[in-house]
């Protein structure tokens, strides 16, 4: 009986060998794939197993934190200080619903798993320090952010503010907002809060400053004016533009293009046309230049592509279109769409003597030991207009604030340039218009700031909605906050 016994011994050996091969396959060959699978809960357990790094504003104040939770798999929960105020900047990081925006993009630094932190991790392995995440230092200015958020109040809308010299984002507000702390955990209560936000008709989780595109209305006339100057259509901003009134859209036979009220737009100069916001003058400029030149100029200002700051913002659109539509797009209507950030970039480029800087909101990344491991260097994105033309446009915009539609934006002790906008929307202008205001402020000591404000749906009566009335005071408050905070 010994011969079959030996064969059985071999058979049993093969069984054990098969198990050994399988365990090697699972734990060596497939280990990486299995340990990082989405279904593998350990990935998330690990993410929340230690304190997450913080998002910092004003160069040192943290707007986030971590609290230890008592129950469940996840040890630490993310909390935000003044969540609704900062949510459009930070995004959320929820144990149950994932993460967005800075919380998601900078996750590697915040969790401490980023390769840039390899050295720190290795060191703390030897020193036995608790694992910790690094910090993300943003460019945000809390005074400006507060001014923007409080200015919007219970109205629906958004504010984006930039430092024109560097492209640093100073404020990024969106209302109605939400508190990411309400669904940061993993409980039924968190789930309910999430569901409620998802179902809210006002879309509080939409970051209007970056992700929503609106018809920019008359604020776009700044771009049209820049196009006129850059293409040499006009050189003197105070010269007669030879614009007829009434002016009919090209290739159309219907009613002529209307101006807002009975304003003297016939043959108005560029300065006057911008001051009074003449649709006829800028419609004609857009038509005279043609679709392609308008597209080129808009592109230089950043239209028609997504912008990463590093949070993605939706692409603003200056469309390829036929002549009448192109003329309408030139006054910020038709299919022309812009994000508040985009319009802030327009104001910033003008204020910065024609140089458009890449907008950014992450100034530094820090290791858990607070060493800087990355510092942002300002970067020029493009030059939409020459320095000379930019200064001409500044004069025009400053006239708007000093004696035009934007007088509500005056800031004592600063030179302010701006442009109002009241954008029609809805079929045949059926819905309440959007109130826009873009502006910049300059003082002797520098401290320039460029702002774009859009108020989407205020409770105001239709006739009272205007960029100068609703949006300009908010822009004024933001600019004032930036200037005051730099003193």
């Amino acid at each position, binding site marked *: 009986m*010994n011969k079959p016994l030996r064969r*059985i011994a071999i058979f049993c050996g093969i069984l054990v060998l098969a*198990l050994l091969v399988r365990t090697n396959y699972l734990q060596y060959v497939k280990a990486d794939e*299995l340990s990082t*699978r989405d279904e593998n*809960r*350990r990935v998330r357990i690990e993410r929340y197993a230690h304190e997450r790094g913080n998002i910092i504003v004003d160069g040192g104040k943290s707007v986030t934190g971590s609290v230890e939770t008592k129950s469940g798999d996840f040890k630490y929960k993310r909390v935000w200080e003044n969540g609704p105020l900062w949510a459009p900047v930070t995004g959320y990081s929820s144990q149950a619903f994932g993460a967005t925006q800075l919380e998601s993009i900078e996750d590697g630094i915040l969790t401490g798993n980023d390769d840039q932190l390899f050295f720190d991790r290795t060191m703390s392995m030897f020193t036995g320090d608790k694992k910790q995440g690094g910090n993300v230092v943003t460019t945000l200015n809390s005074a400006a952010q507060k001014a923007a958020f409080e200015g919007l109040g219970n109205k629906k809308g958004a504010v984006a503010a930039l430092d024109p010299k560097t492209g640093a984002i100073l404020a990024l507000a969106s209302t109605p907002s939400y508190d990411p702390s309400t669904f940061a955990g993993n409980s039924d209560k968190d789930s309910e809060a999430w569901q409620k936000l998802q179902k809210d008709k006002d879309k509080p989780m939409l970051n209007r400053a970056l992700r929503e595109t609106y018809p920019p209305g008359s604020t776009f006339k700044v771009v049209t004016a820049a196009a006129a100057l850059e293409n040499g259509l006009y050189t003197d901003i105070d010269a007669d533009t030879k614009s007829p009134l009434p002016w009919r859209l090209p290739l159309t036979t219907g009613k002529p293009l209307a101006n807002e009220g009975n304003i003297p737009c016939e043959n108005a100069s560029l300065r006057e046309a911008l001051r009074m916001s003449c649709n006829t003058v800028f419609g004609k400029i857009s038509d005279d230049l043609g679709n392609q030149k308008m597209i080129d100029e808009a592109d230089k200002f950043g239209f028609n592509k997504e912008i990463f700051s590093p949070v993605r913002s939706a692409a603003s659109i200056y469309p390829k279109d036929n002549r009448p539509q192109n003329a309408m797009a030139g006054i910020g209507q038709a299919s022309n769409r812009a994000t508040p950030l985009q319009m802030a970039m327009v104001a910033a480029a003008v204020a910065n003597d024609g140089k458009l800087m890449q907008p950014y909101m992450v100034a530094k990344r820090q290791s858990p030991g607070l060493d800087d491991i990355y510092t942002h260097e300002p970067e020029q994105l493009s030059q939409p207009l020459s320095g000379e033309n930019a200064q001409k446009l500044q004069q025009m915009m400053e006239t708007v604030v000093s004696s035009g539609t934007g007088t509500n934006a005056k800031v004592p002790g600063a030179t302010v340039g701006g442009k109002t906008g009241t954008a029609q929307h809805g079929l045949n202008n059926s819905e309440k218009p959007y109130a826009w205001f873009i502006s910049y402020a300059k003082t002797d000591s520098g401290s320039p700031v460029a702002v774009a404000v859009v108020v989407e749906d205020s409770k105001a009566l239709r006739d009272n909605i205007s960029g100068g009335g609703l949006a300009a005071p908010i822009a004024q408050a933001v600019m004032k906050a930036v200037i005051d905070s730099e003193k």
Partner: protein
Amino acid sequence: MSVVTNTTTIGAIDAPSRRNTELMMMVFAIAISVFAYANVGLAIDGSLPSGMFGYGLGLVLLGGVAHLVVRKFAPYADPLLLPLATLLNGLGLVLIWRLDQSQRLIDRAEGAWGKFTPDAPKQLMYSAVGVALLVAVLIILKDHRILQRYTYISMVAALVLLVLPMFFPAVNGAKIWVSLGPFSIQPGEFAKIIIAIFFSGYLMVKRDALALASRRFMGLYLPRGRDLGPILVIWALSILILVFETDLGTSLLFFGLFVIMLYVATERTSWIVFGLLMSAAGAVGVATFEPHVQSRVTAWQDPFACYSTDVSGACEQISNAIMSFGSGGTLGTGWGQGHSDLIGFAANADFILSTVGEELGLAGMMAVLLIYGLIVERGVRTALAARDPFGKLLAIGLSGAFAIQVFVVAGGVMGLIPLTGMTMPFLAAGGSSVIANWALIGILIRISDTARRPAPTPAPSSDAEMTQVVRP
């Protein structure tokens, strides 16, 4: 084996008893387990756990008693079997105790049954019963050949044990439990030993008939119907177990056991062919009709499918187990620092191996699998060394059953074969399993002792004595 080396257990005259080797190994096995406790405690609370002393003392007592009894009643027994089983039982206790500390499992138990009872104390108690059974086997069973007398009684007992669970409600989809008040046992675990005894007795008597009185048909030896009868009965029975109790593992175990023993007894390869054909036919048939088995097969084919489609328990468990193996990687997370408890209610039973995989890593898994391999090969060696056919058959039957069980459970947990729901011998929480496996080790030790015992010294013969010379 033509060359007799000093490593063979075949009783060369004056084979060393190796009892001191066994003692050294026992100390080693218990020390590893105690260190493992310390490790879990330090990892979870940062302090030496109180359990370390309680369980450590328990292990020392159990191991010590077992060793002393072997020293006294089975002095020539294989020196590896007892320490290997002790090591596995010790590690199993640590694993169960470690899973008892899991807040996730505690919450789960409290949610499902209102209270949580730790399994480690029960496991220690069952281990004590198991070792007591081993001691009883060694003391009462002076010679394993006595078991031959109970061939047919064993058959009846095995049948009763196998059929009994049909009359009790299913637990987690399989009817493998018999509940008596607060106690519940898995008769299958005991049946595997009893049925091995029956097969050994039956085949020892019938092996010549089965091997020789057969007709040749298409290159195969077909035995006579009256010899083949019991085999077909067993085949049918294992299918019936599968169908009525939806116990894939047990039926595979019995059928494999029977094929191995038939092959060893008759030395005919044709039995393997028959066995494979019959089990393949049975398996395909059952897999087609039985939904419980079907879901297991589906979960095996694509363990991650349930995440994209509907959620079925079988898939969730197996995918979690596979991920815990992957997360363990080469060196593992360390005792107490893994998340194998994500598997849920079976984490300390069927799936206990995934805790080994995650917390001890590939290195620990290979070590544990090799320990099982060693037990099996020591059992096969015992079979080789045994001098009587009954002992040979019983030893190979028991070690073969052990090997198949290890393969079926570990392979199922690792996704190598469909999951079957048996317990990992010695490691898994469960009274029946640990008691039955200690009894199994006891019988193997008894057979190895008989096999390695030196031949009695020849009786003194006056003829052989030196002629006395009477000097004048």
